[in-house]
């Protein structure tokens, strides 16, 4: 390794140029991990990282709509040991969303073996094919089909060999694991036309299989990234800047170095420590904080966030539908605002870094293992082939763990310490130095004709993004645009991305239009929808909730009901909500009735959990969550001040999963979140007559 340096950490969020793959690992390392048997090839041979232009990226075995190539050869997807153990490999990660369960089911289904016979290794860049980052609800529509194809190809090979075996001898996978001809045959590419099992034939997919490593979780044995241990390991901590953008102008390292067993790593703006335990590491950081001098730039306040975003927005376009406006019976305009929101996974970022002979191994929590490897390569100026990233099943992501800053920091401290270093961010660090769900200012203008039909629709989303910005409604003239601004905080992905904000604005505004048109909000939506799948969930939620009757009945100032619907990433959702307004004007969600459809259901239990989780999690940003900042500091970087949902406010939830075995399965981690906030907002209006145009939705 030559002249290792670390860049300013804030630069690392930018995409880094890849160095190309040149895996040099040997068969021996596989044998150690997987046991003897069907040979898995070095990645360079499998081609999974460098798919030919006509394959891989387009999805045959493809790892995700342009994300990752997926494996090309059967042997890169699975390994059969001579004892019959089948190890399936995927670059996806498990952060609680159920990838481990569903990939196991998919493999077992196609291989024709019980799920218990599958050993699934996830997200080890040295072993697993690059299935792309675990983002965008892509595991279900991209990785699952890829796994099924690879395993179906292996099963076909098995069947071919079995049919040629001497009569009376029943072949097992174990028999074939040492068969040289089978091993040779498994080097073949996963055939383009391999036939996977029909949904009607599913025996393992479609069932509520439990998470395979659930037992380890309930006995405290599962090792999360923050639980990783290596012999001789030290505990790291990082000196954080005094405020966002602050520059370190002077520091005396001596007081920290004087603490017994403490090692200090200084590299430009970066200062980190390692110590035999976290207590000593913190003592060293406290000593460093005492001597550090910072130059802090000015930074905007969350109190004036919307003004700041609008002022810094680039070229807000004019409404293109001047004619429609001129001839409209009514024109409505509104602005909706959403703040920065925390992901707050319960396990803060953690990484264990170990340098050995110029090679770096990092165990960390990330949704993007190959991206983290790229970040590390860029930060240390070493080849990716010298870096291995392993992602143990971790404690929550929600779109908030796409990056590798903690891994880079741990590796830099470990380099200085010349020992393995475990770095676990604290909650205040996670609340401050991770990235946030973006804030947005959304302007909407729509026109109605004399019959109450929408004739034009124009939306601009300042600062957040395009997901969910397109209206699913049947409107002759509609146009939406995302407009970049100058984000004051580091923002990034979040569960459902900008669809959380854009659907909040659109579905709330739909109710404003319904009111202006003198229509019931349900009927108003129906009148503008010709999407059968969206109509199906809307009708189901309304029916199960008894929306029309409850809407007509609940005219008290305390109780209101609202409805909203949305489609995103190939799945469809509608929510009906009842809220209750307390005397102090706080809003309580009493009841959520949600219908959700994502094609063929692969695991009804896991799907229900995802929908329940999305709804309960979504109550936080809808009613309370907002990141507050002032003078370059987060002022509510604590679970006492930033209040996420808790047991006391769990509403009645009835969830209706519409199974469509005739349609391909779509992901379900995100879309179940996006109809809730507008449904709550519409219910609040119904109860109070007061239209709130911001999240969190507050009356006082």
């Amino acid at each position, binding site marked *: 390794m030559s002249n290792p340096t670390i860049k300013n950490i804030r630069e690392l969020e930018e995409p880094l140029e890849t160095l190309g793959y040149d895996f040099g690992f040997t068969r021996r390392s596989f044998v150690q991990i997987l046991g003897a048997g069907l040979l898995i090839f070095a990645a360079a041979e499998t081609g999974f990282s460098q798919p030919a232009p006509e394959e891989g990226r387009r999805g045959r075995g493809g790892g995700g709509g342009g994300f990752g190539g997926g494996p090309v050869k059967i042997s890169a997807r699975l390994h059969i040991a001579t004892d019959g153990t089948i190890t399936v490999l995927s670059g996806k990660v498990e*952060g*609680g*969303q*159920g990838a481990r369960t569903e990939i196991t089911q998919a493999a077992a289904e196609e291989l024709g073996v019980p799920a218990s016979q599958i050993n699934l290794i996830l997200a080890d860049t040295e072993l697993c094919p690059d299935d792309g980052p675990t983002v965008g609800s892509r595991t279900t529509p991209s990785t699952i089909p890829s796994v099924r194809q690879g395993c179906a190809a292996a099963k076909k090979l098995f069947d071919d060999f079995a049919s040629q075996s001497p009569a009376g001898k029943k072949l097992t996978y174990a028999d074939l694991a040492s068969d040289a001809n089978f091993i040779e045959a498994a080097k073949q590419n996963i055939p383009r036309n391999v036939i996977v099992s029909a949904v009607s034939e599913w025996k393992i997919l479609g069932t509520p299989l*439990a*998470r395979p490593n*659930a*037992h380890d*979780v*309930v*006995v*405290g*044995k*599962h*090792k*999360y990234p*923050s*639980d990783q*241990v290596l012999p001789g390991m030290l*505990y790291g901590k990082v000196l954080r800047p005094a405020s966002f953008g602050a520059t370190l102008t002077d520091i005396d390292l001596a007081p920290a170095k004087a603490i017994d067993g403490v090692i200090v790593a200084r590299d430009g703006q970066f200062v980190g420590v390692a110590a035999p*335990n*976290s*207590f000593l590491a913190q003592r060293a950081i406290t000593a460093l904080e005492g001597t550090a001098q910072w130059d802090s730039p000015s930074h905007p306040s969350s109190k004036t966030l919307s003004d700041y975003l609008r002022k810094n927005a680039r070229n807000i376009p004019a409404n293109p539908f001047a004619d429609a406006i001129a001839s409209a019976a009514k024109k409505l305009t509104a602005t909706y605002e959403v703040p920065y929101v925390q992901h*707050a*996974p*319960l*396990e*803060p970022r953690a990484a264990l870094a170990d340098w050995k002979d110029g090679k770096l191994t990092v165990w960390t929590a990330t949704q993007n293992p190959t991206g983290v490897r790229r970040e590390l390569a860029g930060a240390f100026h070493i080849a990716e082939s010298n870096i291995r990233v392993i992602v143990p*099943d*971790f*404690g*929550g992501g*929600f779109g908030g763990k796409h990056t590798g800053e903690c891994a880079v920091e741990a590796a830099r401290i470990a380099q200085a310490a010349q020992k393995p270093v475990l770095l*676990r961010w*604290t*909650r*205040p660090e996670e609340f401050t130095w991770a990235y946030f769900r973006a804030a947005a200012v959304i302007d909407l203008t729509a026109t109605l004709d004399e019959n109450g039909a929408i004739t034009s629709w124009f939306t601009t989303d300042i600062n957040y993004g395009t997901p969910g910005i397109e209206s699913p409604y049947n409107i002759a003239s509609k146009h939406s645009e995302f407009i970049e601004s100058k984000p004051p905080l580091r923002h990034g992905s979040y569960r459902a991305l900008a669809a959380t904000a854009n659907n909040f604005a659109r579905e709330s505004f739909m109710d404003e239009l319904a009111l202006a048109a003198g229509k019931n909000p349900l009927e108003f939506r129906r009148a503008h929808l010709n999407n059968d799948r969206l109509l199906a969930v809307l009708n189901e939620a309304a029916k199960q909730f008894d929306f029309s009757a409850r809407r007509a009945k609940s005219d008290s100032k305390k109780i209101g009901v609202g409805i909203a619907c949305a489609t995103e990433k190939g799945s469809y959702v509608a929510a009906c909500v009842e809220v209750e307004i307390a005397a102090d004007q706080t809003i309580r969600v009493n009841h959520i009735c949600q219908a959700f459809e994502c094609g063929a259901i692969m695991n009804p*239990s896991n799907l229900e*959990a995802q929908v*329940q*989780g*999305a*709804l*309960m*999690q979504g109550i936080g940003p809808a009613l309370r969550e907002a990141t507050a900042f002032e003078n370059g500091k987060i002022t509510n970087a*604590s*679970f*006492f001040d930033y209040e*996420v*949902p*808790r*047991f*006391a406010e*769990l509403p009645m*939830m009835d969830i209706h999963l519409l199974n469509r075995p005739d349609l391909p399965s779509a992901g379900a981690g995100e879309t179940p979140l996006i109809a809730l906030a507008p449904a709550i907002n519409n219910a609040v209006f119904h109860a109070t007559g007061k239209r709130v145009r911001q999240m969190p939705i507050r009356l006082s």
Partner: protein
Amino acid sequence: MPASISFTLNGKATTVEADPDRPLLEILREDLHLTGTKYGCGEGACGACSVLANGKRIFSCSTSITEVAGKSITTIEGLASGDTLHPLQQAFLDDRGFQCGYCTAGMIMNAAALLGTKPNPTEAEIREGMNGNICRCCAHTRIIRAIQHATELAKA
């Protein structure tokens, strides 16, 4: 200056040499290599670090090792009897009372404390008793069901 502090840990007499101000959570995880107990916030706001001290829930992240001297501490690793899971562990497994599982140890330990004082809690009592524990995946519905189920398993 390190001090010698003795307590009972999962039924075994235990003595550690440690700075008296270090939190119990850190001693459990870093000195005694029991990593089942989790860090979530460091200030008793999330419950991930919950363990039992003489049967009562404490936040091990904000309890110094000195404070547990002479007490009986139970962690998630000490809850099962050999291979037989504690009713709460079995119920969390059966009812899938978690998604990522990072909050699970704290949930189970706090629920154990709750059932210690209220063997047959109402749903309202479960909600109130568990309100100090955060589940970010939001498996609350199933956690409540698991605790209710555990009360039945405990009777069986």
